[in-house]
């Protein structure tokens, strides 16, 4: 086995770290407080190639491997988890299905500007009544000549209020259940599209999470993504990769919380010595570090399998399950090590604690990951 990173992977990680520490870390607390979308920084991320990291260069991307994507996502998320999810959605949930299922014309028209970061994408699967039960799509698509007409609501859409291009799932025939679901590429400038509201959230507050309405939105038939009835497969296979992105986001939050806790434990004195000298604190740090490292290995392994062209769905679900739950655990222990200071917005662990909590909910709850993993093992 080779656990070493390549020269290129190390360089990409360093570039992401430099960007994150210089451009994101100084502002993350303010963006969180004000729920401000980091528009200028997202634009710069695009210029650096971080919004289309795995897309081949011929389609405007950086052509990097998944392992590099994990490393970059971790660094970005360690500084600002909101920016992390903006990046993850564009890369994993928008660029990837376009590259995998898109026609050449769709790639040239949509993937190129999305991968370059000239346009921003969002992924519209969840609905008010379709969360973990994603197949229960109520948004409808009706064929009308050379167009599809979309009607319905989408919920919890990351980048929803800032996106230019959406991947939208809709039901064409409820009798066919999940086999009636189609995927579409929808431009937000389309008539009938509206951003209804933005969620007020516990964390990742600089990322917008929107409710979107589709009221008779006409989509040209050549913007159907993938085959007839393949929408649910497009959605699920996309989430397999998305989970590697969210696992990486969780890793970043965990890393930031762990580093903050270590540094605080070494400097904070109680009972006449740094609290790092107390066994209770040492064991917390040990458990936090162990869970972080195990999460990291699971996530990198899922990424390496994807790079090698091997099946990676189960490993991605495991990485997402374990990394997200570990991130919450690590952030929670970091707050505890900080004591009262950890409950105050003056220290970043307060934000890490709130940000971490979403990672075991979105792109498949922990319960959904367990369904996926059990499905593989019991098949």
């Amino acid at each position: 086995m080779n656990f070493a990173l390549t020269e290129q992977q190390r360089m990409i990680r360093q570039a992401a770290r430099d960007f994150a520490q210089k451009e994101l870390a100084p502002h993350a607390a303010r963006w969180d407080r004000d729920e401000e979308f980091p528009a200028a920084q997202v634009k710069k991320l695009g210029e650096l190639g971080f919004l289309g990291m795995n897309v081949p260069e011929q389609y405007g991307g950086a052509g990097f491997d998944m392992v590099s994507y994990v490393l970059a996502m971790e660094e970005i998320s360690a500084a600002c988890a909101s920016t992390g999810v903006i990046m993850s959605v564009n890369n994993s949930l928008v660029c990837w299905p376009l590259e995998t299922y898109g026609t050449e014309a769709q790639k040239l028209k949509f993937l190129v500007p999305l991968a370059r970061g000239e346009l921003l994408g969002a992924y519209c699967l969840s609905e008010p009544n379709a969360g973990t039960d994603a197949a229960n799509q109520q948004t409808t698509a009706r064929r009308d000549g050379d167009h599809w007409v979309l009607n319905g609501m989408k919920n919890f859409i990351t980048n929803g209020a800032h996106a230019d291009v959406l991947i939208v799932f809709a039901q064409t025939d409820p009798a066919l259940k999940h086999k009636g679901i189609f995927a579409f590429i929808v431009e937000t400038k389309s008539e009938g599209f509206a951003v209804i509201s933005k969620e007020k959230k516990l964390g990742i507050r600089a990322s917008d999470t929107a409710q979107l309405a589709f009221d008779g939105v006409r989509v040209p038939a050549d913007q159907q993504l993938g085959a007839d009835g393949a929408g649910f497969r497009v959605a699920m296979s996309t989430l397999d990769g998305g989970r590697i992105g969210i696992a990486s986001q969780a890793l970043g939050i965990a890393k930031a919380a762990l580093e903050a806790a270590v540094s605080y434990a070494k400097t904070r004195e109680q009972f006449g010595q740094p609290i790092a000298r107390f066994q209770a604190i040492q064991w917390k740090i040990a458990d936090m570090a162990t869970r972080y490292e195990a999460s990291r290995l699971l996530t990198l392994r899922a990424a390496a399998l994807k790079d090698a062209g091997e099946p990676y769905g189960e490993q991605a679900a495991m990485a997402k399950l374990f990394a997200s739950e570990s991130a919450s655990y690590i952030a929670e222990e970091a707050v505890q090590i900080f004591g009262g200071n950890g409950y105050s917005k003056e220290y970043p662990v307060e934000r890490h604690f709130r940000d971490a909590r979403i990672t075991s909910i979105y792109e498949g709850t922990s319960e959904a990951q367990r369904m996926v993993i059990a499905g593989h093992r019991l098949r």
Partner: protein
Amino acid sequence: MDFSFNEQQTMFRDMVRDFAAREIAPLAAQMDRDADMPETLIQKLREGGFFGLTFPEGLGGLGVDTTTYGLVVEELSAVSAGVAVMICVHNSVGSYPIAMFGSDELKARVLPRMAAGEIAAFCVSEAGAGSDAAALTTAAARDGDQYVLTGSKMWVTNGSRARYYVVLARTPGSVGHDSVHAFLVERDAPGLSVAKKEDKMGLRCSDTCVVELDAVRIPVANRLGEEGDGFKVAMKALDGGRIGIAFQALGIGRACLEASVRYAGQRIAFGEKLWHIPTVRDKFADMAARLHAARLTALHAAWLKDQGRPHTKEAAMAKLLATEAAGHVADEAVQIHGGFGYTKDYDVERYYRDVRVTRIYEGTSEIQRLVIARSVIKELG
């Protein structure tokens, strides 16, 4: 053994449940958002006797026992943990030191005013003295029949709303427990100022402040207990305080469980209510069982206190178990609500933030374990 509540306990619980639903619940989310509490609500709490709960009837209080007090705190916390902590601090650590260690003159003068709703606060923690409370550096220099207090206190609940502050300070230049003294300081004492209000994750309607003491002169008569009793005063007060925080956590936990069961009864996934999904039912079972076990422990600690029996270990156990159970329950409540639980449209988002501090203040979980282990080794070692 008798596990039933008496008539007074049941009556108070039901009255407070009604009051909280009527007067507090409609304001709770807004108070969290604004990080403030309307004076009109505080006035209603005064009129309802909440500031005199644990004070003797002869001094204008309601003189309830600790069990009743716990049930009241639980009911308040199920609606607004921020309101509850204001009442808790006032009725326990803010006033208990005066009731237990104050001179008769001090008690007669101050306790009736506190019972009527002049708010009390407790000032122990400092920037460098958290779990290690004995590391406090605030100085109390004796000058004739006065003390001169100088220092800075942190994490003072009720900091800006209080009229009275119990302050721990030490003989200048001394170290250790034995040179710490406890005092009552009044808000209008020259040199006392409320510096800043903390911007917190949760309990946002409760004010947590830095209180500065700049050569504040107070009469010797305001000392609580003898010279050097300060640490003992604080620890005794915290024993009672911890029972209150245990019930606070239990109230938040109960609200989480109720909200989750309600939500799961309405939310349909895979063609049925979440009620019928086995893993959701398992979550309910664990949530309910953990809360119940912690609640019995807290009720037992309250009973011991009312019996006048030692309860340091049991109060620490109650706080440890209740706060950790409630933390788990709040986490599961968010999970059951899915994405909705991450938004401010649902109360569990607030409960999740509010509950987190219960494992930190009035002694972290780590400190409770120290207290419990010390007792266990003494008993069994």
